[in-house]
């Protein structure tokens, strides 16, 4: 099996955008083709990561639409839906297409258009992933976060302030991300006094509703060398699931999908958690950064909050987490988020992250669907 490389990447401005989902896909797709220096007729496979364009906008069939708009016919195409981890799932499908030899050039574009809906409407579209016994009680993803945060703080004797410090850190990181929805710092007092959304979590513990798109170009390493001397390798990618019914989990503070998917990725790449220099984690809610940093093996169970308190996950710390600003600051256009995580690691490993740059030869992206229902972990290294 040949090494899989990424030779180009792009992302649009995240936030409230005038364009619709096809406009966003086109913007990121054309920018990625340009960045990679690849002609559309060279694309064998074109994957589109998207959770709910039909529900949000009434637009379906977007994979064929973007293949036409980018003049990529007759490339094989498919839309990848894995809820909030659609982007990560797209990375896995794109990786598989190249690693299997089925494709010598695969374009992945992820996008979501959400901000034209009210917050309750968007919340309900996302909550429609829940089991009927959850949905009829009005259970939402934010309420899962509140339930889990309370149990985590109680179980591990962690202070409420530690969750707030995740938001403060990621907003600080996002200041230097020109594509981020929020490019401003917030202080801890503002976070802790913001309106309650799902007790004990408050408004600033949650990512915003966002429009945006991101894209990546995958090919075998041998083909990459024909285009460029500088590229990033993807030595490992793992995917796993946990229960659909969230309350059935024996330990709600452990995300088994994160544990299992990262075990697969680490083994595939012959790497360990200690080998990771920088990580992009799925901080849709602040509590998720604690859970993932522990379940990926970076910190002992129940000690992720201490790492944040000690500044170890700051951009200048020994394991920078979410130097992009994370979903918290950058925004969370569902299908684009997992692609944008890999975009950030790509930029970091290429040395092109400008003021966000950290010292890194290896990186990890963890993309979470639902409340840990589906997870994709991707490991990357500079060539």
């Amino acid at each position, binding site marked *: 099996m040949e090494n899989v490389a990424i030779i180009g990447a792009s992302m649009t401005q995240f936030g409230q955008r005038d364009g619709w989902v096809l406009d966003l896909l086109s913007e990121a797709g054309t920018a990625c083709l340009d960045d990679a220096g690849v002609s559309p007729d060279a694309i064998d496979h074109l994957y589109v990561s998207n959770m709910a364009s039909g529900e949000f906008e009434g637009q379906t069939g977007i994979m064929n639409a973007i293949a036409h708009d980018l003049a990529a016919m007759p490339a094989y195409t498919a839309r990848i839906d894995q809820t909030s981890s659609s982007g990560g799932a797209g990375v896995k499908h794109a990786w598989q297409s190249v690693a299997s030899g089925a494709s010598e050039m695969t374009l992945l574009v992820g996008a979501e258009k959400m901000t034209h809906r009210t917050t309750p409407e968007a919340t309900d579209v996302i909550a429609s992933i829940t089991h*009927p016994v959850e949905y009829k*009680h*009005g259970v939402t993803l934010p309420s899962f976060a509140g339930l889990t945060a309370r149990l985590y703080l109680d179980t591990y004797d962690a202070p409420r302030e530690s969750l707030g410090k995740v938001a403060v850190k990621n907003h600080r990181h996002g200041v230097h991300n020109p594509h981020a929805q929020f490019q401003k710092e917030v202080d801890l007092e503002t976070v802790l006094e913001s309106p309650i959304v799902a007790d004990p979590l408050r408004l600033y513990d949650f990512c915003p509703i966002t429009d945006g798109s991101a894209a990546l170009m995958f090919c075998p390493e041998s083909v990459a060398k024909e285009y460029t001397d500088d590229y990033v390798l993807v030595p490992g990618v793992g995917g796993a699931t946990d229960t659909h019914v969230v309350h059935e989990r024996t330990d709600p503070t452990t995300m088994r999908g994160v544990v299992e998917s990262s075990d697969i990725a680490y083994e595939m790449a012959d790497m360990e958690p200690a080998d990771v220099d920088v990580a992009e984690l799925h901080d849709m809610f602040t509590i998720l950064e604690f859970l993932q940093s522990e379940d990926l093996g970076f910190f002992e169970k129940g000690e992720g909050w201490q790492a944040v308190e000690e500044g170890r996950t700051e951009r200048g710390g020994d394991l920078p987490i979410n130097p992009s600003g994370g979903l918290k600051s950058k925004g969370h256009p569902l299908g684009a988020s997992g692609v944008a995580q890999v975009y950030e690691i790509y930029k970091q490993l290429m040395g092109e992250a400008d003021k966000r740059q950290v010292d890194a030869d290896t990186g990890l992206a963890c993309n979470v669907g639902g409340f840990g229902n589906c997870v994709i972990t991707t490991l990357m290294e500079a060539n």
Partner: protein
Amino acid sequence: MMEAYQYPDGSITYPGHPIGPGGEEPVDTIDLSEYTAEVITWTTSTAAPPGVREPNTLAVVEFDVDGEPVRAIGGVTTGEEVEIGDEVRPVYIEELREPGAGIREPDSQEWDGYRFEPV
């Protein structure tokens, strides 16, 4: 009836599944509404989706069915705060949220069920 399934290895799930955690089909049903449960964790949501009461206090609870634990989620009847470790009992509610107000097709699921009342 708050129907849970029991499987050959003794495990119980709510809701039931065609195949249980041990990989086998269910052999029995159990009505959890006849039992009390302990609050594992809870939250009060103030950003409820369409057709849902606001604020919406929710709890994950654990029943003890003859030594076998089984968990469930539901609203708290009073809408007030509970505490981890509190004992609650299921109380039948005819309509938990307004059918048709949200995205899900009204006929696709049942809208009645049980909330939890502190004992």
